């Protein structure tokens, strides 16, 4: 089975995040860029299939600036076989329409059976890219899976996934080729071992521009018209409990008509 895992580099969520007041896009200069945790889990999901069936290949695909190579390297050192890096200054700040067109075009360049993505990135929170890709590629999709397994072996089998979202538990079945997205309930990513780290540098990374993909007329479908920063919250009263805190809290609730 040939798997392509989508990888995204995002600002480190452990640091403060800011929007660029001009563009309304995430200001990537303020925090360190790291591989998105959900991408790591998506890679883990792919590698788990590779562990079970050695003939499986795992290709990473990302769209991002030169620094996104670090995210690919991380995935390659975890055990992926190769990577595709769509890297083009013209794609900086691409909206989800452009992003889905570009990635779909890249996916059409090589054969694959399964695309695995994270359900939503920590910086975008759109969560629509996997389904948009599936739509553009004309394949089935199942998003927000908490777990999945392959049935019936590599050839001719199905993928059976479970999701629990918006108050409903579901089991979904789909064939190949298809696109799935996974949630953070999937297993944690493995740590790359030293052998993996040393080997990652030798693995091939194909670099593509939008022109390489035959895409020239890339116009965003959506534009940001305004960005306003809300003033940060101020700390209010703070008391140290000496036995009377509960009463003070109840008084506070009463003063705000909350009880």
């Amino acid at each position, binding site marked *: 089975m040939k798997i392509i895992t989508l990888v995204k580099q995002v600002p480190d*969520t*452990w640091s*403060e*995040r800011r*929007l660029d007041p001009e563009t309304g896009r995430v200001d990537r200069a303020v925090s360190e860029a790291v591989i998105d945790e959900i991408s790591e889990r998506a890679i883990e999901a792919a590698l788990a299939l590779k562990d079970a069936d050695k003939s499986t290949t795992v290709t990473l695909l990302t769209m991002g600036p030169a620094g996104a190579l670090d995210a690919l390297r991380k995935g390659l050192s975890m055990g992926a076989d190769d990577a595709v890096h769509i890297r083009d200054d013209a794609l900086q700040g691409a909206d*989800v*329409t452009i992003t889905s067109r570009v990635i779909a075009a890249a996916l059409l360049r090589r054969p694959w059976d399964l695309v695995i993505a994270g359900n939503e990135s*920590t910086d975008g*929170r*759109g969560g*629509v890219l996997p*389904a*948009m890709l599936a*739509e553009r590629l*004309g394949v*089935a*999709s*199942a*998003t*927000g899976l908490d777990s999945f397994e392959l049935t019936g072996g590599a050839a001719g089998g199905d993928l*059976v*996934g479970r999701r629990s979202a*918006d*108050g*409903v*538990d*579901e*089991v*979904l*079945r*789909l064939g190949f080729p*298809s696109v799935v997205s996974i949630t*953070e*309930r999937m297993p944690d990513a493995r740590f790359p071992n030293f052998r993996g780290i040393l080997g990652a540098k030798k693995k091939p990374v194909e670099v593509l521009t939008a022109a390489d993909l035959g895409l020239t007329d890339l116009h965003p*479908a*959506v*534009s*940001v*018209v*305004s*960005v306003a920063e809300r003033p*940060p*919250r*101020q*700390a*209010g*009263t*703070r*008391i*140290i*409990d000496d036995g009377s*805190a*509960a*009463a003070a*809290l*109840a008084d506070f*609730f009463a003063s*705000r008509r*909350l*009880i």
Partner: protein
Amino acid sequence: MTTVLVSIELTPSGDVRPGLADLVAHARSIGSPVGVVTVAPGDSASVTERLGAFGLAEVLVAESAAVGAADAEPRVRALVAAAAARNPTAVLIANTVRGRDVAARVAVRLDAGLLLDIVGLHAEGKRVVGEHSVFGGAYLTASTAGDRMTVATVREGSTGEQPSPVTASASALEIDDTTVPTAVITEATEHARRSERPELRTAERVVSGGRAVGSAEGFELVERLADALGAAVGASRAAVDAGYISQDHQVGQTGVSVSPELYIALGISGAIQHRAGMQTAKTIVAVNKDETAPIFEIADFGVVGDIFTVVPALIAEVEARR
């Protein structure tokens, strides 16, 4: 008045998700809402009856044998057919996991602009402008698809408006049944409501517990305070990861974003990811043993103390003053 299509999401048992009220309210701010729903053959009448309660006077109903079996496809096809018939300025869909799948495919099929997770909607001339609350409300941004048709996903609970009931009238919408590859739903179970507590996403009050709660049994304390205040129960990721409570209670960046009147954080340190999901609450109260916990930086009222002594006393106080 321009037409705004409103996609209706039904649960497996056929209930209407309450967030529909938000979609209808947002639709009204730029045009007149027209509901679009897909049901199993023969279910048109019963669903139409219930939609009036959400203020939808007009509903397009597509019947399809694939409802309940094929994943997003029946809804996608109904919306595309409705858009062809009614030429709407916008299509609104709940920002749920299933809703986003529908929105993604509809936007591609209609070559529309896709606005995600909007909390407000207005018209500027011919343009439809969506408003978003980003990074837990730290920023408010607005975006537009310009001249294109707008497909937008709507944050449930973003209006808090109660709809005025009307009588809904239905027209049938024909959709074809050509087969495209789709995931098939082989099992669907609705979560049993464990209590009469309000739903987390739209609750006016939320009481959340963190890792300091210490155990699944300890979480009962959080639930008791929630019940005393008529609040929903939330949790930090640490508490979920520790297995004290199920993931659908998780508040924060990778969980549910809430914006209640009152948010009470018990034993939650307030990591930035958690704050991103609750800092737009009107009033924030925190109880934590660690006086340096960052949650205190944003709390309107903070108590440095042990939740196991403060909370039982607080429950008693609240009940005594009722």
